[in-house]
């Protein structure tokens, strides 16, 4: 079932955030939001910000992704 557009926007924003700050690999990995890499990177971000490690794009995590911040990645490259 196609996602409602707002959900889709949130997922795209999350993917962009995780790619920029947590090194989520670029490219097509099937449904990004269900892939192992996506969950792993979300948990990395939740761990960094001491959020609950859900591995999901929950409201709390999304709220943090929308806060104004520095453009340097949070994890070393």
């Amino acid at each position: 079932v196609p996602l409602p557009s707002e959900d889709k926007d949130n997922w795209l924003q999350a993917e962009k955030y995780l790619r920029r700050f947590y090194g989520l690999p670029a490219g097509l990995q099937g449904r990004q939001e269900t892939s192992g890499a996506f969950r792993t990177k979300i948990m990395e971000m939740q761990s960094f910000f001491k959020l609950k490690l859900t591995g999901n794009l929950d409201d709390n995590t999304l709220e943090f992704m929308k806060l104004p911040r520095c453009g340097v990645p949070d994890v070393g490259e």
Partner: protein
Amino acid sequence: YNHFPRHLKWQNNNVTFRIVNYTPDLKKSDVDRAIRNALNVWSSVTPLTFKKLHNGIADIMISFGSKEHGDYNPFDGPNGLLAHAYPPGQGIGGDTHFDEDELWTKDSSAYNLFIVAAHELGHALGMSHSTDAGALMYPIYSYSTGQVLAEDDIEGIQALYGPNPDQKKVKPKPDAPDKCDPMLSFDAATELRGETIIFKDRFYWRLHPQMPEPEQTLIKSTWPSLPNKVDAAYENPQKDQVIIFSGIRMWALNGYSLVDGYPKYIHKLGLPKTVRKVDAAVYIRDTGKTLLFSDEEYWSYDEATGTMESGYPRTIEDDFPGMDDEVDAAVYHYGYLNFFHDHVQYEYSYTSKKVIHIMRTNSIFNC
């Protein structure tokens, strides 16, 4: 704190910098001052010195640009990404870029250039992001006044460069309190639209039944006009207001916004002038009265009439047997008063008038 991989740093303590262009949001002299003050933040605790170049190539090249600005690492328009910087090294190493699509200010009305510059120049010197919400190197922007460096930042930069040989006394901000510290005490506690807010130092935790993990945030990043330290707080659900006490002043909040006419003096409630601080406050939903605790005594304020009840102050010891004689914070749930004092929490049954349970203060965090 974190460093970049291989602990990248400048091999020479005398670092040069150049401001390549300026934002039209501020006077040139304001930008110069903000950058110089931001560099001083780091030189005050290390042997590093910063020499300004007016042309040519400096170690740290500082510029303002929007969207794609030459390093294939584009900005994103207003908000979102504010700035970025590169770790020490040749070429682009150390260079610091600010997003010109932001509004840069000298105060808290928009993004404060000094605070963002101090953070970015931390990167330009070798610091990566910190997970400590109170650290300057925490990746999310928050406005604060006074000392910007936390202990965590100082430890990190001195691990790279050592201390400043003639370091004047630098009073760093304390790190964020650890919710699972068994000796943790609270400054204040209140309900807020179904959530429980716990204040400690410059921070507050938000607890919500559907949010198993408490969320720690700087007080000033949510309520910039509040002081850094809260003594007491209570929610008056009838008015949908939270009253915050600090020293002899009190503020009324309606969600994120400050109610007009505040801060006011606490004595407006009818407290005697001798009271200089409210230790704890709690609204008893079943009686419509607010209990205000100070030292060993407490008062009862009738919210409906806006007056202090006669017959007070009374002593905590007399009316709340089994309790310590002082209180740091208090919340009221369905007939039970939870008093917090130091690292001990007392659950007091308001109906049977006795302490029925004693726990650690931070047991509320399910550590």
